[in-house]
């Protein structure tokens, strides 16, 4: 057996912090391009030594951040080379890189392609100046609007753009306009997120102070529905709560998070996932690396595992994860498959919850397959809560 895995490399640096972002990232004056790459390479070596990866094959590689497009291309090339040398690969491995739309010289994009990157995810967020401004983004609307075109020129055939909605001052018409602009660029994939402000971010503070306001609940729902229908009308299929794709262009890497695929995650603050297929019931662990970059560089510098936390998971917990994550997907979950995978029968464990979800119109059942309804997507957290 060889099990598919994803590899995630976290690049924790940005040129400046976005006021809504709560991801692990810092904005130092000079970027430790090589030092950080060396550290990640060391982490790969350490994880290879600590665990057996011979029966895994890499299906996707993802450079996320932060702003990984700030990283020297030659360092990225070293990363990809090391990974492809160390693990068996899928023939059509997906290699994604997140790129800011203001950093895209066609020549750079071409070079990216030449070192093996075959999918680009643009942090466009919006296609109108007023919303970019409200979000505190530093690129402008023309950067957003020309991103896809430039990437196509550089030869990319798999391009995603981010679209954020529910932005301060946005109304349903404005949000729909943004969605139409996104679709008009003809990307292959759109990640459409409702803006969520976590405490500790600058915008969350502004919200608490009352200097900004978010659309109220009724309006937020109208906005969401306007965005969804605009994207669907333009031929994008909503295969996950926030993910839209043209046929055959679903993100391999992201889908892995929702289908119980392992992920070897590298870099400061990265969260990884590893299964133990040897036990009769499934077990596994989730780990996270130290989020502080200096600590990360230090420990890998000493050839020490940068893991900060490990959480052991039993079959029940893994099954719960598969259920709530799988029910984010349009295709839902296959209870038969989950039973075979986990060693526990979800049809028994979740009999009451499934019955209630169905009664409340949150899911539809077709034999072993359980799919979320539109309501089930809209109330996905309510649905998840029924699983406890």
């Amino acid at each position, binding site marked *: 057996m060889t099990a598919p895995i994803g590899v995630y490399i976290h690049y924790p640096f940005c040129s400046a912090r976005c006021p809504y972002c709560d991801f692990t990232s810092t904005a130092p004056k000079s970027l430790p391009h090589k030092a950080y790459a060396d550290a990640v390479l060391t982490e790969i070596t350490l994880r290879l030594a600590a665990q057996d990866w011979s029966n895994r094959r890499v299906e996707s590689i993802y450079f996320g951040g932060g702003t990984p497009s700030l990283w020297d291309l030659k360092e990225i090339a070293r990363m990809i080379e090391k990974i492809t040398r160390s693990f068996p690969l899928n023939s059509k491995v997906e290699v994604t890189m997140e790129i800011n739309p203001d950093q895209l010289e066609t020549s750079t994009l071409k070079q990216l392609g030449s070192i093996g990157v075959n999918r680009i995810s643009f942090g466009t967020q919006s296609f109108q100046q007023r919303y970019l401004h409200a979000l505190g983004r530093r690129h402008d609307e023309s950067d957003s609007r020309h991103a896809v075109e430039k990437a196509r020129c550089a030869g990319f055939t798999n391009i995603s753009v981010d679209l954020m909605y529910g932005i301060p001052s946005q109304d349903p018409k404005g949000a729909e306009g943004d969605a139409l602009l996104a679709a008009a660029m003809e990307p292959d994939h759109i990640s459409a*997120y409702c803006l*969520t402000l976590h405490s500790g971010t600058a915008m969350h503070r502004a919200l608490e102070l009352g200097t900004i306001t978010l659309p109220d609940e009724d309006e937020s729902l109208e906005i969401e529905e306007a965005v969804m229908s605009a994207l669907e009308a333009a031929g994008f299929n909503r295969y996950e*709560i926030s993910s839209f794709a043209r046929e055959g262009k679903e993100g391999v890497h992201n889908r892995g998070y*929702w289908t119980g695929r392992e992920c070897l995650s590298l870099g400061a603050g990265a969260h990884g996932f590893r299964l133990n297929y040897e036990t009769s019931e499934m077990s596994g662990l989730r780990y996270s690396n130290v989020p502080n970059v200096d600590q990360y560089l230090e420990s890998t510098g000493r050839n020490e595992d940068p893991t900060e936390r490990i959480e052991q998971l039993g079959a029940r917990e893994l099954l*719960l994860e598969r259920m*709530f994550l799988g029910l984010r997907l349009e295709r839902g979950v296959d209870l038969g498959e989950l039973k075979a995978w986990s060693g526990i029968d979800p049809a028994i464990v979740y009999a009451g919850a499934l019955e209630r979800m169905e009664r409340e119109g949150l899911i539809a059942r077709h034999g072993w397959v359980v799919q979320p309804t539109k309501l089930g997507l*809209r*109330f996905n957290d309510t649905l998840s809560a029924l699983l*406890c």
Partner: protein
Amino acid sequence: MQSRIRNFAIVAHIDHGKSTLADRLLELTGTVTGRERQDQFLDQMDLERERGITIKANAVRMTHKAADGEEYLLNLIDTPGHVDFAYEVSRSLAACEGALLVVDASQGVEAQTLANAYLAADANLELVPVINKIDLPAADVDMARREIEEVVGLDASKAPAVSAKSGANVEEVLDAIVKQLPAPVGDRDAPLRALIFDSWFDSYRGVVCLVRVFDGELKKGDAIRLWATKKTYEVQDIGWQSPHFKQAGSLSAGEVGLLIAGIKEVADAKVGDTITHEARPCEAPYPGFREPQPMVFSGIYPVDSAAYVDLREALEKLALNDSSFVYEPEVSQALGFGFRCGFLGLLHMEIVQERLEREFGLDLITTAPSVVYRVNRSDGTTLDIDNPANLPPVQEIDSIEEPYIDAHVHVPQEYVGAIIKLCEDRRGMQLGISYPSVRHVQVDYRLPLSEVVLDFYDKLKSVSRGYASLDYEPSGYQIGSLIRLDLLVNGEPVDALSLIVHKDRAFQRGRDLCVRMKEVIPRQMYEVIIQAAIGTRVIARTTVKAFRKNVTAKCYGGDISRKRKLIERQKEGKRRMKQVGNVEIPQEAFLAVLKIGD
């Protein structure tokens, strides 16, 4: 012999060091060895330690060689400390001749110092003040002495000034007990007369009674009779705690100890009952006995209906040890199968609920407490109702009577106005006001029990800044203008939320309840309409708005653990929710009536 016995309690304001002083006395007399040392030695239950209140009485015998060279028996009687247990407290105090009144040297006389002093004085106890915490930098012994003399009205010139914490001067307390507290004055040759002041069930020994012998002598093998139950037993074992059980051949007039006599249930060893000899009974029992009488009733239901049997077994076990707690099965449309339980008061109810959850691992929903109403039906029959849901239809009711109590409030003069206002607000009828001493006022009111059980005691304490003490006894039933207030959730009446209220209060209660329910019922996928109704007439309404959406936008890497933990945490919250129709109703909603008017 009796001249060398002292039976005493310790009373104090909270945190003035009552438990610490008790611990130190136990150590100083060698009753507890260093190895056994444990803080709050007398409070055996976890709950007692945590809440800092004493629920069960206790008695420990110490021996002390006094300055006169004689050896004295000192019985320290630890009394319960809450108005719910007012009767139990009075019985424990009856076993004593005196009490130590502990006052914190840095705080001086405080509210409960006075309230407890009133209770002890009411029980005719001799009070010896003790000034504690002299080790504190803010300690002011002279101030404390002055306050004890001026506010409480006791001579404090000879009051020992001690630090129970460090042990400094604590031996002076022992001397004061010997010198200043009276010895018991029973007649050893008279027929046996002994008071049961607490009892509990021990799985090895059966019912154990804490007794105070007033007259005569109680010996192993004696045939005894309990006055109230008229049942007879043979004394199997007798002794005292020091602090563990020590066997003895007899207990005679003036002594305090333990009795084991093959009594099967605590209900047969009633607190306040008198023990006498079968062959040579005393003429009259010790006065003041009352049958244990639950004052409030509420429904207790398992959240998971499969736990019904576990709940029944747990209730059986608790009732074995608590004769004032009663229960019987009942069925609610909303909550399913459960039990109607009777308690002495709200604290007692909380304690039972907490023990059920903690000691038996049950998840429970408790409904709002109710008193017992007496319904006179049109056909001439009467019906006792302890659950508002069981009230017959209006057309079958001739009148409804509600229970009343006579409340005696002791309070310093400056709070009399506030106390009167509170009692009037609670539909009270003034019985009288008297002045037992210069600044000390006794206010007597007849009040509907339903107005007292909810939060009267808390309000009384708050309007008197803690200085008022409350004591009450039942005073029969009176017809009231009472109606049932129903609560409807999404148009469906929820039987477990019904209340019986006074007609004049119905509208206000209905509105307050709707508002409170809105606060505690979490928003759900659907709108939840809450209505208060009298019969078919809706008098108040609120709406818990539906969520429009409830979804986490991003769920990658680290979000997954976070979300799983969130779901697992919700499970904890769910343990206290009951699903009624489509609506999740949390425990707080069922007790919402307790929180209105705050």
